[in-house]
């Protein structure tokens, strides 16, 4: 791995900008050249994926901290610089983005409508999401976040599907929610910036520098509230969650995958990196509230899943429910729970993306997502059924798949802090099992139905999402230390620097 640790080469910029370059290249491809368009999209995401896997492996855990740093001063007067870097927290999420981005290209392989525009927007979307994870600068973070919102709106409006709600409604809801969230974020970040300037006299947007600023507790509480509303909207905390099921239901497959898989995680990521580590006292103040609402997330959304009829709504609400675990992990404010929260974000990302890819594939062929319409599909499409099963089992936290170590870690971390909340939240595993198995059973199992004999099974490029995401789920499930160790280096070193207590508070 020596060649990759070469400090001069801007790996992160290459990873970040390759999809963008792909998008630019696509502009010059004639729209009839559908195959070329897809190939360019696939290749550019593949390059990013390979590089990010290499970086994931080459990241030096013994040193920890930010690595593969790049710095270019951008706006001197504001203290904004194009500074990139990854640590144990962002590394898995970067990998996740590229895994899902690559799979999303293949999940959209059969798209026939305005292919060129679709892939251009998709690549921009992937770049935007990735940017939020690799940047070390608050301003750039927000910039990339805003970059994300617009393609999503356009993609939902044009390529979305209308079921319970129209795609226009879904797109509008999604976008407005995200923009309201980002408005709070903007306010919070400006407050941070201005306050830091007043305290230190240095104009900086650098997150690590902001971590060292001694904000007053009063300011931290207000600042965390602003940032918290922004990020919690993004991670779909109750009661700011209702964009999520409707949005996913309306969005095209690739957008659902990226949105549920990674975009949502920006909320958790920001909450941890900016909310928690820059404003620890604020986090401590608001954590109990977050914990309560997180419990609401877990149980409430899981219970709602029980009565859903649309596949995408089930997965949509289920992702709300799973984000509750992430939130409770964050709220518990200790190394273990936050390790678990990040791992859960990763695991849930892979699982949700796989789910949406499979649902998208099924919907493309059957033109319905209504669960009662299906039944016995394992007879006709066994490979698709494998994908559904894998995603479903990961969703209910089966050991051997990536989500179990994550959930277990969250539970351990949170249990020492909020016994009652955690006990209630863990009951979510029962409801999850009920709705997932009910869904899988009703869709995949049961007597063969003649009307679905025409369905074709996964073949060719359609395999890719299942293989890529399934492999990841199993690999990180059997060898969780591959995921846990980098995360732990990131979280532990940050905890050490902010002086938050790392032990779990024993209530006994």
């Amino acid at each position, binding site marked *: 791995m020596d060649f990759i640790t070469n400090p001069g080469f801007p790996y992160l910029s290459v990873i970040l900008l390759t999809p963008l370059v792909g998008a630019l290249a696509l502009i010059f491809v004639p729209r009839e050249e559908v195959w070329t368009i897809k190939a360019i999209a696939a290749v550019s995401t593949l390059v990013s994926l390979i590089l990010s896997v290499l970086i994931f492996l080459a990241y030096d855990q013994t040193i920890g901290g930010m690595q593969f740093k790049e710095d270019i001063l951008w706006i001197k007067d504001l203290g904004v610089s194009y500074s990139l870097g990854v640590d144990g927290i962002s590394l898995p999420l970067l990998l996740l983005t590229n895994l899902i981005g690559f799979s999303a290209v293949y999940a959209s392989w059969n798209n026939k409508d305005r292919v060129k525009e679709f892939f251009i927007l998709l690549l921009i979307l992937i770049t935007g999401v990735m940017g939020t994870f690799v940047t070390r600068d608050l301003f750039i973070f927000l910039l990339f976040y805003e970059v994300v919102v617009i393609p999503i709106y356009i993609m939902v409006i044009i390529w979305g599907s209308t079921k319970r709600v129209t795609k226009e409604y879904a797109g509008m*809801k999604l976008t*407005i929610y995200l923009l309201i969230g980002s408005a709070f974020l903007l306010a919070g970040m400006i407050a941070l910036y201005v306050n830091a300037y007043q305290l230190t006299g240095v104009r900086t947007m650098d997150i690590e520098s902001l971590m060292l600023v001694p904000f007053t507790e009063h300011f931290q509480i207000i600042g965390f509230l602003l940032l918290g509303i922004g990020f919690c909207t993004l991670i779909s905390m*109750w009661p700011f*969650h*209702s964009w999520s099921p409707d949005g996913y239901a309306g969005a095209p497959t690739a957008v659902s995958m990226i949105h549920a898989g990674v975009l949502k995680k920006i909320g958790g990521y920001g909450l941890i990196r900016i909310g928690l580590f820059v404003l620890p006292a604020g986090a401590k103040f608001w954590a109990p509230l977050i914990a309560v609402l997180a419990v609401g997330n877990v149980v*409430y959304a899981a*219970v*709602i*899943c*029980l*009565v*859903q009829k649309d596949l995408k709504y089930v997965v949509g609400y289920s992702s709300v429910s799973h984000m509750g675990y992430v939130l409770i992990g964050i709220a518990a404010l*200790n*190394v*273990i729970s936050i390790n678990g929260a990040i791992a859960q974000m990763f695991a849930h990302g892979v699982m949700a993306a796989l789910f949406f890819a499979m649902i998208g594939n099924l919907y493309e062929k059957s033109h319905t997502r209504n669960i009662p319409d299906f039944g*016995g599909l*394992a*007879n006709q499409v066994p490979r698709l059924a494998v994908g559904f099963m894998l995603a479903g*089992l990961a969703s209910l936290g*089966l*050991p*051997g798949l990536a989500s*179990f*170590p994550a959930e277990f*870690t969250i*539970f*351990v*971390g949170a*249990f*020492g802090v909020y016994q009652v909340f*955690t*006990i209630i939240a*863990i*009951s979510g*595993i*029962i*409801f999850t*099992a*009920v709705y997932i*198995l*009910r869904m899988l*059973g009703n869709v*995949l*199992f*049961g*007597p063969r139905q003649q009307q679905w004999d025409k369905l074709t099974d996964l073949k060719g490029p359609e395999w890719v999402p299942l293989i890529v995401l399934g492999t990841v789920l199993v690999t990180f499930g059997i060898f*969780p*230390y591959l*995921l*846990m*160790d980098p995360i*732990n280096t990131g*979280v*532990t070193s940050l905890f050490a620097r902010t002086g938050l207590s*790392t*032990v*779990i508070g*024993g*209530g*006994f």
Partner: protein
Amino acid sequence: MIHFAVQNSWLIPLMPAIAFAIIVFFLRRTPQASAFFSISCISVSFLLSLGVVAGVLMDPAAVESSVTWFSMPGLTVEMGTLIDPISGMMVFVVSLIALLVQIYSVGYMENDPGYSIYFAYQSLFAMSMLGLVIANNFVQMFVFWELVGLCSYLLIGFWFYKISAREAAKKAFVTNRVGDYGFLLGILFLQIIFGTLNFTDLAQIIPTYANVGLLTVIALLVFTGPIGKSGQFPLHVWLPDAMEGPTPVSALIHAATMVVAGVYLIARAFFLFAAVPTALQVIAYVGGFTALFAATIAITQNDIKRILAYSTLSQLGYMVMALGVGGLTASMFHLMTHAFFKALLFLGAGSVIHALQGKQDIWEMGGLARKMPITTKTFIIGSLALAGIFPLAGFWSKDEILLAAQSNGFTGLYLIGSLVAFLTAFYMFRLVFVAFYGQAKPNNDPHESPAVMTTPLIILGLLSVVGGLVGMPWLSTNFGSYVYFGEAHHGYSLMIMVTSTVIALMGIYLAYLMYYKKTISASAIANRFKAIYTLLYNKYYIDEIYQWGINHIVDGAGRVAYWIDLHVVDGVVNGLAKGTRQSGTILRYLQTGQTQHYGMVLVAAVVVIILLLGLLDPSLGISAWGGGN
């Protein structure tokens, strides 16, 4: 070889894991090859487990090794192996039964389209179960605990095109999840309080822990795991339905191995339960109640597999009760003998079902004794063993349990146990007399099963006969010398032996009178006690109650929450949107279209801004404008 097996016991679960992976990825289209490969791998595991048993017999001291699965400050999760007499015995039983069942399946599953995948699942199960029994900590236990649950789900739903199979599989998984919820909470408590989940470490720490109340809570939480997995009341409902799976699966998973995982867990974590007598009492009474409860249901059932399933529940109750009264040795002993004869009974039932092309109602059978001699003989051996007739395996182990109950002061449970022994003998021989000796049905054409199926029957039959002898109380070194908690003790009571045998014989005689001689009319009794019969026949309506609860309470909560989501949460959101639009509708009338209005507002704004800047804040004020430079 022995040393190697003990030191490298992780290879035992690894072999079937390899088999699973190879079959899934490479051998799916070659059924014979997958069966062969799967059986080869489990054979290797079996040989290794023999080595382990030999090693344990030579040196009963625990051998432990582990690797870190993942770790962080304050939490280290390990994967490891712990070989001691208990796990050695379990490894042996599991790999033996798994091997026999896989061989049997070659015949039973012939021509099934899912032949390869069946063996893949079997291998996955063997891997999970073996991983479970050699676990050296709670997390590993939980991991494999869930995985055996998954295998159970997959194998119950193996014929997924049957709606009943699909529902049964789901029910099994969900019911188990309820138990696992408590189990997981217990694990979390242990982790938080003691900072470790290693069995050996916890066994050191827990006896010194002062807060008995909390420890009781933990013990009961951990016990909910076994309640689910080992089908104790009130989470027993899944096990009878699990009979939807292929019969060899029922034999392996739902009789001999997986369902006893709960019992095994209690034994493994007995240091926890031993520290809290209250919890032990609860366990004892839950077990005793389940034993009686299930036995009463079994006497009214007509489906051959369901009778056996309720019998399994009842016997599991026995084992749990034995643990509760402090008889770890008795419980483990019964676990082992039960694995032999219950697997035998299920495989025998499978042989019958195979011969009758899937018929399972005992009243549609009859006269099988002449057509299927091997099956019949082995089945009767199994029944006798289950009934606890001297000197078959079940006699010794059941006797130990009753002895433990009686000598530890649980007279009530002793009486219940004796009653259950009577009922067991009765329903088993009801089954035998009706199915094997009853009137032959004309449209049946039974024939003896092929050798690949009868050979496992014969082996298990032999084990059911002699398997109990290792626990004979008169031996100076017997089963109890190795498997025990605290201090090993050897004792026996001739009185109990004699009474229990007499009771069992009475049960058999009653069944003989009612179903062979027909001197006592079964239907007359059923009509006499109509209400009780209906209650028993409908399994105390527990399933219906649960179904009602799920339909109305759980789903009802879902509907309420969804209503709230649509009308309250989303209502607020959409209301805000509507409010925005409406305020726009109102505020747009401010746009008069009169340019002069706009102009005046502009001027007024200029005036206000000048006032604000110039007068209220002198530092930014007019005087500062001066100078130009």
